[in-house]
């Protein structure tokens, strides 16, 4: 994987999965997101980059309404998933989160066995009728999480006993197990070493064939390596959004250029 790939890569135009229109997010009095419009395509990896505190994680958490758990957080504007407003009164955030899986910055496996970690989602959503079905889902998820070979002999071992990189891949497998349509990743590699990072990035590239993946990252190399579309956030604004190769080779906004060349942020 080297940076040259971004030039060769095709950007397929896909159907739009998520669409945000004039989205504002407030934490109490502070406005964290200042009215952004964004279209996230299906079967594409979209990277959110930007300096710390620019609102990229906040916006990511709006996409599966994880911000609901923060009392003072308020979202205005419209975010649609397949054309349906996810902040509509009728939407149950629990149902939404089953469709939009999430992987967090710090690997956070449940303090249960590896098997139970994966099986938890399918169980609460009733995805498996029988034990055999469930076993099958667990195996498929672990395979797609590229961790099956490492853990297949110790599915009963605690998930917290794995190494950091394995834990993060376990968390990705757990997110896949509920058969989501979109996968949100909030700096999934920030706690990992380069080897584990490479494994996770490879995994993200494979996942693109089935899912729409949105990844927040602080590493511009990573954004360049894994994404087809990149959004640059700065101080709560979406400064620039476009194909990754254009953003990195020919940024239109001077702020984007300063950031990717390392002058701000």
């Amino acid at each position, binding site marked *: 994987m080297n940076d040259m790939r971004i030039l060769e890569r095709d950007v397929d135009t896909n159907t739009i999965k998520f669409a945000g229109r004039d989205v504002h997010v407030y934490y109490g009095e502070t406005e964290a997101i200042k009215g952004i419009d964004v279209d996230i395509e299906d079967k594409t990896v979209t990277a959110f980059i930007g300096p710390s505190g620019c609102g990229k994680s906040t916006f990511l958490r709006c996409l599966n309404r994880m911000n609901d758990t923060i009392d003072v957080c308020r979202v205005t504007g419209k975010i649609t998933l397949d054309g349906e407003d996810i902040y509509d009164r009728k939407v149950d955030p629990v149902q939404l989160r*089953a469709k939009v899986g999430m992987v967090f910055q710090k690997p956070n496996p449940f303090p249960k066995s590896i098997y139970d970690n994966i099986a938890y989602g399918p169980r*609460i959503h009733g995805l498996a009728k029988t034990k055999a079905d469930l076993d099958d889902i667990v195996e498929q998820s672990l395979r797609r999480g590229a961790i099956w070979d490492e853990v297949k002999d110790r599915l009963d071992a605690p998930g917290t006993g794995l190494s950091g990189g394995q834990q993060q891949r376990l968390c990705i497998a757990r997110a896949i197990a509920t058969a989501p349509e979109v996968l949100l990743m909030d700096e999934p590699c920030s706690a990992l070493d380069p080897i584990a990072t490479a494994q996770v990035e490879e995994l993200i590239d494979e996942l693109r064939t089935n899912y729409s993946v949105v990844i927040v990252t602080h590493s511009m190399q990573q954004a360049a390596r894994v994404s087809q579309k990149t959004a640059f956030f700065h101080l709560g604004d979406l400064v620039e959004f476009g194909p990754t190769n254009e953003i990195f080779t020919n940024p239109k906004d001077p702020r984007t250029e300063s950031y990717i060349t390392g002058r701000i942020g």
Partner: protein
Amino acid sequence: MTDATAPSAPVSGDAEPSSLFTQTNRTKRRNAAEKRFKAYGLGAIGIGILSLVVLLVSILGNGLPAFKQTYVVMDVTLDESVLDPNGNRNPEDIAKVLTFGYTPIIRGAAQNLVREMGGEVEGLTDGMIGDMISKEAAGQLRRFVLANPDLIGTTQEFKFLANGRIDGFFKGRVTMESAQIDSNVSPEQLVAAERLAEAGHLTTSFNLGFLTAPDASDQRPEAAGLGVAIIGSVYMMLVVLALALPIGVAASIYLEEFAPKNWITDIIEVNISNLAAVPSIVFGILGLAIFINYAHLPQSAPIVGGLVLTLMTLPTIIISTRASLKSVPPSIKDAALGVGASKMQTVFHHVLPLAMPGILTGAIIGLAQALGETAPLLLIGMVAFVRDYPGAPPEGLFDPSTALPVQVYNWTQRSDPAFFERASGAIIVLLVLLVLMNLVAIILRRRFERRW
């Protein structure tokens, strides 16, 4: 500020180039301060351990004798003319003879026993010999006869409690000197007791009655036991456990995970913390006003005691439960919500199991606090003299009973030093129960922690 201050500002006294082998004044002062602090800490721990040792030694020294008791073993002829005057072995007729009727039989048997041993003790009257046996003996004999009417007319061997003073003589509480000025016991009785002991008629053995028998009146400390108090305390703990744990845990889960953060929940929170600091006697007044005067629950009943102690324990349980819920890492909650678990599933599948050890510890601490609580129970009448065992639960919860700490308080109020010994014994029982509860807490903690 730059580091280049060499000639103009010499650094803290030692201008000479310093060696690592000599300590600077500053380092010396710091080390001395550290040593002083360590000494303070050791001193504090030493004082703590010393007081604990003194406490344990004094309680064990005073209380252990309560677990032993002096008994008189003797033959009693069950005289038919006294016990069954009609001679028809009709239980109703036998029951008409009250304990007063049995007393002369026992006194007579005791006199025979002392006489048979020979060696008249000078100045020992028949009355004195009779007083060496506990007044409880008549009741014991009557119960035996009522249970075995067929044995009337025969001679049986009985093991009666010795009088409290005689018992005290063998435990070192009563001496020949103290007996001289004691109107309840005379040196002649003690001499006779010694002879009986030599002949094997007077034995000291483990006092099961201390743990099973009900309380006894001022005149017979030797018969007093903790049976009713232990049952009362256990019943109250059951009530507290059944009410305080579910209510407390439910309240904390709601406050911690579901309740919106606004001024109403702020007020509730402040009030819970305040309730934890309310003197327990205030809860007693509350119980008296609400449960007894308003709801007309019976006085001295474990149910009322349990309810009052529940109110008292709730804040403790809520505070510790909330603390342990708070200590569950938020990343676990995020993970559960992220795979689409509902709030309740998140709490019950992930947060609660992780918080369980902390919750249990808090609950047991609350229970232990409740077990040792005396003041509120005084107000709801559990200080009463209760001789009847409460029935089996649930009806038994409404029968009068006492509680362990109240029994300790009660016994220390009485004048006979034998009761002081028993009060210390009761404290030992209380402490053993507390240690057992803590042990259960530790075992449960281990269990739940292993399940991660």
